[in-house]
């Protein structure tokens, strides 16, 4: 089953010709509209019309998250603000968010790609989609919502949290499709058990899980506990949001990336050079139809591999493997992107000093927990309990405000946190490896 059979099964030569055509037009647009790209092209001595084939893409500059931060908030927008109909943002690395804007056409395309993704996962009209991705600045909630409506399914805009109510509604409304983070799905299963609700008695058939890396063994566990078919979805707000790539229910082997809108590359994160097909590297994406904020060779920092082998589902679009890690120090905790530098800047702001700190991430039951250990040295120490507790509370609140993530701050004695040669170890991730 396809949503857009023509484009999803476009023979590769035609698909690649379409990519070149769209890429050229995208390059023209950013060259004319975005000073950042005009300057980059000039410094490399390339002109947008010098691109003749897809191979030439390699000679063009990368875009990194820092570029988006430097251009905060709207500097990389290619469309005038009067054409921007939606703005989303994800938390940036040191406090300022990464901002993206969508034109009406961008929203249309995003909705279509999300609708294609639903169909790829085995969802159809008549399904009741229980959407537990967060609504708001985060792209997950609205992205899935628009795709569901585009498809013509019924969507329940649940957003995250309030687990008991989620279970009640899932049961009473007869939800057939669940969209959330994989860890939250297991949390739901646990909570349902406590409520005396058996997932086998529910109507759920398909679960579409993303926004954090998960493993094949976790899929088995989810499918068993929730009694549904679990599908991996990939996306990031910089590129669009959810629906950049998704598995097909037929093969469940790699995520089809919608190549008529995105050009994927896999590079060696150290050298920036392409790696051979099938080898692991960093995923780089060029958006070729985006109007609001088209990005050229955006370095996602996600580690994966790619295959152009034909798939049993009939789609001709390349497949990327499950994300297996990051090429930077970003952590994904309960679907929230966390950079250690964000925590560091909060600590700096609260105490005016840079304390030694350590982030400990664990999986308790099915939910990730974050503990922030802060060494209490003489600059932070107070002889009164209430001051120390207030400080810990203030740090917890700031983290909650900035990242929407509940954490536990633990004050520890100096030198508790291991010092290593050179770079300090800031993170201990005790979660099972993907």
């Amino acid at each position, binding site marked *: 089953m396809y949503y857009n059979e023509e484009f999803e099964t476009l023979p590769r030569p035609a698909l690649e010709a379409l990519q070149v055509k769209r890429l050229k037009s995208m390059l023209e647009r950013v060259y004319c509209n975005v000073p950042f790209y005009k300057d980059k092209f000039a410094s490399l001595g390339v002109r947008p019309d010098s691109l003749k084939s897809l191979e030439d893409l390699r000679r063009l500059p990368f875009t990194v998250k820092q570029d988006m931060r430097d251009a905060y908030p709207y500097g990389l927008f290619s469309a005038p603000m009067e054409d921007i109909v939606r703005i989303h943002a994800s938390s940036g690395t040191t406090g300022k968010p990464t901002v993206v804007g969508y034109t009406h056409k961008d929203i249309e395309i995003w909705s279509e790609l999300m609708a294609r993704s639903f169909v790829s996962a085995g969802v159809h009209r008549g399904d009741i989609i229980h959407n537990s991705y967060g609504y708001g600045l985060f792209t997950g909630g609205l992205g899935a919502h628009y795709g569901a409506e585009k498809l013509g399914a019924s969507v329940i805009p649940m957003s995250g949290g309030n687990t008991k109510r989620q279970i009640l509604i899932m049961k009473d409304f007869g939800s057939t499709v669940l969209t959330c983070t994989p860890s939250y799905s297991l949390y739901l299963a646990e909570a349902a058990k406590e409520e005396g609700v058996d997932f086998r008695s529910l109507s759920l058939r398909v679960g579409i899980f993303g926004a954090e890396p998960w493993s094949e063994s976790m899929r088995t566990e989810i499918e068993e506990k929730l009694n549904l078919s679990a599908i991996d979805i990939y996306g990031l707000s910089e590129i669009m949001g959810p629906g950049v790539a998704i598995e097909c229910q037929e093969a469940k082997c790699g995520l089809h990336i919608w190549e008529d809108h995105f050009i994927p590359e896999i590079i060696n994160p150290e050298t920036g050079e392409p790696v051979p097909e099938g080898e692991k590297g960093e995923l780089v994406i060029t958006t070729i139809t985006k109007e609001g904020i088209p990005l050229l060779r955006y370095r996602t920092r996600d580690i994966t591999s790619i295959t152009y082998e034909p798939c049993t589902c009939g789609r001709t679009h390349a497949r990327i493997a499950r994300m297996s890690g990051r090429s930077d120090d970003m952590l994904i905790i309960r679907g929230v992107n966390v950079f250690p530098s964000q925590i560091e800047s909060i600590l700096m702001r609260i105490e005016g000093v840079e304390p030694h700190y350590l982030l400990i991430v664990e999986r308790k039951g099915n939910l990730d927990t974050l503990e922030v250990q802060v060494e*209490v*040295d003489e600059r932070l*120490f107070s*002889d009164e309990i209430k001051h120390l507790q207030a400080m810990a509370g203030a740090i917890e609140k700031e983290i909650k405000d900035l990242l929407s993530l509940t954490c536990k701050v633990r*004050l520890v*004695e*100096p*030198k*508790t946190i291991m010092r290593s040669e050179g770079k300090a170890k800031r993170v201990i991730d005790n979660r099972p490896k993907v």
Partner: protein
Amino acid sequence: MKVEQISIFIENKSGRLAEITRILGDSGVNIRALSLADTSDFGILRLIVNDRETAKQVLKEKGFTVSKTEVVAIEVPDRPGGLSEILQTLDQESINVEYMYAFVERCGGNAVIIFRFDETEKAIELLTARGFNVLEGERLYQM
């Protein structure tokens, strides 16, 4: 009239108190009075010792976070209502007690209460004027 107390940050884990008292003992520091304030994660050990400088130095060398705090020591008459009179006097002048702990004098048999006030100077002035026996630091250290 103020007394210097040293405060030490300790994590709530086994062996920390033993470690501190061992370090002090090895350095010939004698503990006069102590109190431990604790939460589920950490605690603050407050000590009156005979030799503050040595105590502070050796604990710091062993990596502890140590600070000095000014507290007030008051001798409380050994009779019902002794403490209450002090607290009422403070209350009338709106002086807050942040924390307090007590021990019993070795010779006289009176109780000595260590107070941490939000306004140390004002408290000393008030209590002295009302005839309470505010003890000199030296007397405590050498007790």
